[in-house]
């Protein structure tokens, strides 16, 4: 049932980054549900050690073990994994040196924490290595273990370095198993099998960070995907009304008669409503300007609404449906 032959695009690894707090974890989870729709098997991975996925799906903290967290419309499955650099290092030691047990002893002494602290790149090598292992994993019948892998990745400021760490390693280690591993990881990351999405809000700083991030990724030959604009709110006033507000030509007597009709007419309320209309108009204009800057980047833009009641499982399915209807998964 699950092979990615029948999936419309050849992208297998979806990396989700963005400025801190813009909704990376939420978007990654909704994207995973969307990709799982119609019978696919998807792995949602987190690497920042924060158990954001478990909180979001309201399940117990994830161990270093793939766990099913949700089903998708049409019979798909979302599995989740919280990758911890220590466990990933044990995998790595086993893979290259058959040294899992020695590694465990080191872990108890705090040596692994030490090693990943003195060489922060090492952590990234292990985490990206794990992601690629999952992407490439085959089942007995040679089908892919997962149709798609969604990575809740580090924020924009660190994403290029994170994804590129293996090409640095490859440059440092001239020969040997580590070099060939690094090369094979890069052959997936810097290829059409991978795409990097960026999540943003319509505010100046996150938009700037997104544009800088796109430029940086592109300059390093990494494949940039879509821009997810999160927390969008529909304007309360239409374009004509906002124009009138901006030109201070809103009809006070109109508002007054409206308020009269519901028995709320007072000069104070009118003054408040007018001030708020101006405030709202400025905000909407600012958002429009920022959206334009994103559109100029010529990427698919997915607009995700602010869910007023906050994010619960139901909201994730709602966001997933919007993603399914967008261009991202087509």
């Amino acid at each position, binding site marked *: 049932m699950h092979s990615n032959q029948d999936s419309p695009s050849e992208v297998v690894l979806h990396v989700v980054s963005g400025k801190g707090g813009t909704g990376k974890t939420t978007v990654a989870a909704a994207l995973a549900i969307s990709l799982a729709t119609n019978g696919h098997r998807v792995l949602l991975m987190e690497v920042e050690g924060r158990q954001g996925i478990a909180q979001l799906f309201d399940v117990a903290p994830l161990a270093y073990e793939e766990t099913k967290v949700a089903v998708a419309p049409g019979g798909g499955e979302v599995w989740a994994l919280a990758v911890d650099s220590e466990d990933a290092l044990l995998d790595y030691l086993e893979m290259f040196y058959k040294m899992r047990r020695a590694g465990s002893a*080191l872990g108890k002494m705090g040596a692994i924490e030490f*090693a990943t602290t003195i060489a922060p790149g090492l952590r990234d090598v292990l985490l990206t290595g794990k992601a690629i292992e999952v992407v490439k994993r085959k089942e007995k019948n040679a089908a892919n273990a997962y149709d798609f892998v969604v990575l809740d990745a580090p924020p924009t400021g660190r994403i290029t370095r994170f994804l590129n760490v293996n090409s640095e390693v490859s440059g440092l280690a001239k020969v040997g198993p580590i070099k060939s591993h690094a090369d094979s990881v890069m052959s997936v990351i810097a290829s059409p099998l991978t795409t990097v999405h960026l999540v943003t809000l319509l505010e*100046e700083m996150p938009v700037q960070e997104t544009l800088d991030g796109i430029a940086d990724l592109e300059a390093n030959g990494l494949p940039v995907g879509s821009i997810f604009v999160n927390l969008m709110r529909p304007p309360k006033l239409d374009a004509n009304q906002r124009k009138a507000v901006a030109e201070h030509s809103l009809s006070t007597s109109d508002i007054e008669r409206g308020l009269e009709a519901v028995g709320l007419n007072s000069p104070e309320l009118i003054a408040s*409503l007018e001030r708020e209309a101006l405030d709202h108009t400025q905000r909407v204009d600012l958002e429009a300007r920022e959206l334009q800057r994103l559109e100029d980047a010529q990427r698919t833009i997915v607009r995700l609404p602010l869910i007023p009641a906050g994010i619960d499982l139901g909201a994730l399915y709602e966001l997933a449906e919007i993603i399914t209807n967008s261009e991202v998964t087509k």
Partner: protein
Amino acid sequence: MTSLDIDALLSNTDTEIIICTGAGGVGKTTTAAALGVRAAELGRNVCVLTIDPARRLAQAMGLTELDNTPRPVSGVSPGSLNAMMLDMKRTFDEVVEAHADPERSKQILENPFYQALSSSFAGTQEYMAMEKLGQLHQDDSPWDLIIVDTPPSRSALDFLDAPARLGSFLDGRFIRILTAPARGAGSAIGRIAALGFGIFTNVLSKILGAQVLSDIGTFVAAIDTTFGGFRERADATYELLKKPGTAFIVVAAPERDALREASFFVERLQSESMPLAGLVLNRVQEVEAGSATEEQITAAAQRLRASGEFELTASLLELHAQRMALKERQKHLAARFESAHPTVPIIAVPAMAEDIHDLDGLRQIGAELADKNNDW
């Protein structure tokens, strides 16, 4: 709400250092800059140390070059305002240069491990912010008030903990054992083996490469002979934060996560007897208080919608109700914080319609910070 008298704090010449902390993106840099402008206009000679300010804000303050020295900001009087952006690598380099002779500092600065440490190590930014604060706060410095912004980190506590953590790490057991050969203690190898560390260096050199280990060794040896422990140095600046002339201002957004973060921080300051001036609740929703309740406004908007007339009024009432609801939610969160921390003064700063990126915007934030009659 107990309110915080910002002008009294800024005018008091005993106040020598103000530190703005909080979770990522809540408005620390904006608050630090706004306090700087206001203090200078109250007559203080201020230096603001900012970290990664938004580009336009940096430009507005004349911070076009990252040269790691305070530069005067024009148009602020009768006191004076100087501002700088922290360059963490440069700051680290300067520490090395100040403590080592030219030859040795060249050796350190060129060491690959040092280069990684000074530009990308977890905690270096916090460590160097404190270091820079220590440098700016010299007896002969031309400013009488230093306002410090803190690095964007998930947790505000990092500002307090990262320098010591990094210091301990650099002074720590593993790094010493690992680098023992390079430090000329040949017998340490035997000791390592005895302790069962042989496998440790073996595995590490496989993973990190023997070159990295030898770089670390050279680095530690060079550093050791120039200045004492990193930990000691971090501890010394930490002491500065406990002095009576220091005031912490915790910035939070009126959201659950940000306030939880602020709570942790406030409790920590209290448990260490560090001077907490108060909490700035930044970007709160303002709504003119009218006599109608949110329910009445919502019901009225619905009636107008149903009638199909007065669409503009209906939209405006909906907008109004939305804001009232948001404000209620925020006030509820603020009240919870307040009941957990009844002695902590709180100031609410409204969300402005646009980002803050010029001196006038900063003045406006400053005025809000100082507004004692704000009954939000």
